[in-house]
């Protein structure tokens, strides 16, 4: 046996990230031609939104999809974003784990992976490269590249490149030909774009298909305040992150100064108190720390209860007013209300819950509330049954809010966080983190209470209107009869009764009922 073992030579080599994802594409959502096409559109549209709204630009996004022969599909996404510097273009599209969103703030993209998965998938299914045209505001030129990925080395291959005078002020156009089943993916993609239009009422989104064109014109010119780059909260930091921070710091820094400089909400007092509690001398130099010290430090940082709450500057909720406009734009309900909760946190991660509730109008009738879920403004379309929002909604007895099912009731939930607590790798359902669940319930119940007030007003209005009809319709008959018996003019009595009725209706105080 021993002889046999020694006779075999093990070969060792590293696996490039590109190769890893090429082999495990289902992890990133590219599991089959239907899902892959949907995922491709998503990645491109989300990059387009990040390049606009995060930088104070009102998004103007055009999506073009054309099915070709052999299940090939042409996809083009055009934005008016900040553009990409020409030197960065090949690498942001050609190297897995390369991007500009590794700062701590709320964006749709996070990993530096998304668009590369789209490129990889196109490359292995159709063999066609990605084409990109981009220009920045300050530049006079636009740059065009055709890019593929060298999978083994995780590096871009530039197939073609051109520079010319620019034809648009700023933005990026990305084109690729990939394999996909448009007929089957179509409904999902359309509903993804519709929901994106709902959460981003300030965006104009156009979808051009082979045979039709759908346009969501922006209904607001107001952008939510963009998120600021922030520091990590000590509770939310892990060993790798802290090691990285120490590596980048001056070694002569004291532990106390290090904490103050690198973490959210840590001043001199807080740092001192914590370090003493954790058994460290605040004056210890970073150079003196052993790996074991760092491990203890990180553990204690997680255990410590007296940190200040994380600051939510890194978050960018849509806000009640915009959320309402977005919901109106898509659902055209007869009533809508929105609740943006104050910031909260779980495990050192700040988060904000927003909820909108729409009733009547074009909201479809259904036996349970129709749910629209968003995380960091990304629509979640799969695994609704496993999501915490659905759980909270199902636990509510809606009859106490005067809702009788089937009802035209829709609920929108939006969770913003620098770390969305997804359930599993699918990133489509949010886990039942108690803090998040509680905030969701408070927000939904608040919105539901407002709905109840609205419905009672409607009920009352209906009652009063009905009262007016019922009494009003008999006035001529009653006046005629009594006028005959009393030898009086029928018109006098009718007028009296009519005036009394109008007065009666007015005193019932229904003048300020919201218009349907």
């Amino acid at each position, binding site marked *: 046996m021993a002889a046999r073992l020694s006779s075999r030579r093990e070969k060792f080599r590293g696996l490039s990230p590109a190769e890893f994802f090429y082999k495990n594409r289902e992890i990133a959502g590219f599991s089959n031609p239907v899902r892959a096409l949907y995922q491709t559109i998503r990645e491109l549209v989300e990059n387009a939104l990040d390049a606009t709204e995060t930088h104070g630009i009102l998004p103007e996004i055009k999506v073009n999809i054309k099915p070709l022969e052999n299940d090939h599909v042409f996809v083009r996404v055009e934005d008016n974003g900040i553009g990409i510097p020409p030197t960065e273009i090949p690498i942001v599209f050609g190297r897995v784990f390369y991007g500009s969103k590794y700062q701590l703030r709320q964006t749709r993209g996070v990993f530096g992976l998304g668009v590369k998965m789209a490129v990889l998938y196109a490359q292995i299914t159709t063999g066609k490269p990605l084409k990109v045209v981009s220009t920045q505001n300050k530049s006079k030129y636009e740059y065009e590249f055709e890019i593929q990925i060298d999978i083994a080395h995780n590096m871009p291959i530039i197939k073609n490149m051109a520079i010319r005078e620019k034809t648009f002020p700023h933005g990026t156009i990305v084109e690729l030909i990939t394999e996909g089943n448009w007929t089957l993916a179509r409904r999902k993609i359309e509903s993804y774009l519709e929901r994106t239009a709902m959460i981003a009422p300030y965006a104009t989104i156009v979808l051009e298909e082979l045979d039709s064109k759908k346009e969501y014109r922006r209904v607001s010119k107001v952008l939510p305040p963009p998120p600021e780059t922030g520091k990590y909260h000590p509770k939310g930091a892990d060993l790798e992150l802290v090691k990285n921070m120490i590596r980048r710091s001056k070694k002569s820094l004291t532990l106390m100064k290090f904490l103050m400089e690198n973490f959210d909400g840590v001043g001199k007092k807080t740092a001192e108190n914590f370090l003493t509690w954790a058994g460290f001398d605040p004056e210890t130099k970073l150079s003196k720390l052993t790996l074991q010290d760092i491990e203890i430090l990180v553990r204690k940082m997680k255990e410590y209860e007296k940190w200040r709450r994380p600051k939510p500057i890194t978050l960018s909720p849509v806000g009640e007013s915009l959320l309402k406009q977005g919901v109106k734009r898509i659902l055209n309900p007869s009533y809508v209300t929105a609740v943006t909760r104050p910031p909260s946190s779980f495990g050192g991660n700040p988060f904000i819950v927003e909820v909108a509730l729409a009733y009547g109008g074009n909201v479809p009738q259904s036996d349970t509330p129709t749910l629209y879920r968003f995380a960091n403004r990304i629509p979640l379309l799969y695994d609704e049954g496993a999501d915490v929002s659905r759980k909270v909604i199902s636990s509510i007895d809606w009859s106490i809010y005067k809702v009788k099912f089937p009802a035209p009731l829709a609920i929108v939930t939006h969770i913003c966080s620098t770390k969305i607590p997804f359930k599993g790798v699918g990133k489509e359902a949010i886990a039942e983190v108690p803090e998040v669940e509680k905030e969701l319930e408070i927000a939904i119940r608040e919105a539901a209470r407002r709905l109840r007030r609205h419905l009672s007003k409607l009920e009352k209005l209906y009652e009063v209107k*009905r009262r007016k009809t019922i009494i009003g319709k008999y006035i001529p*008959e009653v006046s*005629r009869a009594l006028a005959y018996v009393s030898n009086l003019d029928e018109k006098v009595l009718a007028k*009296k009764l009519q005036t009394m*009725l109008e007065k009666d209706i007015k005193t019932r105080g229904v003048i300020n009922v919201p218009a349907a």
Partner: protein
Amino acid sequence: MSPRRRRKSQSAAPSEEEVLRILEKWGQSLTEQILKNRYPTLEIPVRTLSNTIWDKKRKILVLGPKKARRSFFDVGEAKRFMQTVLMLSIIVRARREGDYPTIRDLYYTGKHTIYYVDEMGRRRSEETWNDQRESNAVIQDIEVATGLLREHMGIMHDAKGKIVGNVIIRSKGYDIDLSRLGSGAYAVPPNVDKLEIRRVDADYVLVVEKDAIFERLNEEEFWRKHNCVLITGKGQPDRSTRRITRRLWEEFGLPVYVLTDADSYGFYIYSVYRSGSISLSYESERLATPEARFLGVTVTDITEYKIPRNYIIKATDRDIKRAQELLRYPWFKESKAWIEQLKLFIKKKEKVEIEALSGHGFKFLTQTYIPEKIKQRKWIV
């Protein structure tokens, strides 16, 4: 034989002018409320069993003190209010013009379509009333609210009562001798108070439930042989049959005997003649004959008169249920004899028709049963 002396009636009818004045005053009060910007509201005594009171002393059913306020501005009452004043105006018109409509005429006169636009902006229509029950109900409301009976208001109904006997009445200027009608009988008119009873030559009144029995007794001239007045209401008696019965008792002091089948329905018919009915309790004072006597057929008669088995019918569940109800009515409950009869009925579950007495021959009823029962005072009350 000398005619009966007339006594003074306590339930005389108001004059035509008086009737019109009361109706107009009632309508006028509503008009005035409107002119004073007040919600026009009617006050109407409640006509349900819960507001029906058994007057022990007078031995009649009367209306209790409960009144319902019916405001035109009450959504649930608006229609009934409209119906009430509509009916009032039709009756007032009939009085002013000297018309005598039947309740069915009133129903048709008032029935028409109201067109309106509803709260959703839809054009809709509605009938002032959908069936005669609705119009009859408001007539009753007007009766109880004004204290006037429909006969006073000149409203007719399909009268079905019949009468024969040594009685002379005067109607529209003609004297009518109720003993000279041959095989026929006099049909009691709707407004009995318009009749003048001029002469009565009889010892008692015999009221029979069934028309067939009435015809038989009339054919035999039972009333002539036994010196009585014979009346039938053909089942559940209408108001005029009850009124003429009462007048003969009240104005001429005639004892009244009631003869019905031996079953719950027969017993109840007797109690309607005697005490009044629940739905018309407001008019008992004029219609009831509180001293009426139940001659038969009683439950005990079945054994006492040895009615042959083949004439005995098994009582249905409904008969029994009805008898149990009767046991709860105060006017039965306060009579020992009736409690006994009803309990026996419930126990034996047997009923018989008057015709069962023919088991002893066709002449048994007229020659034996009726005279014997009256003579031996074998009636119950």
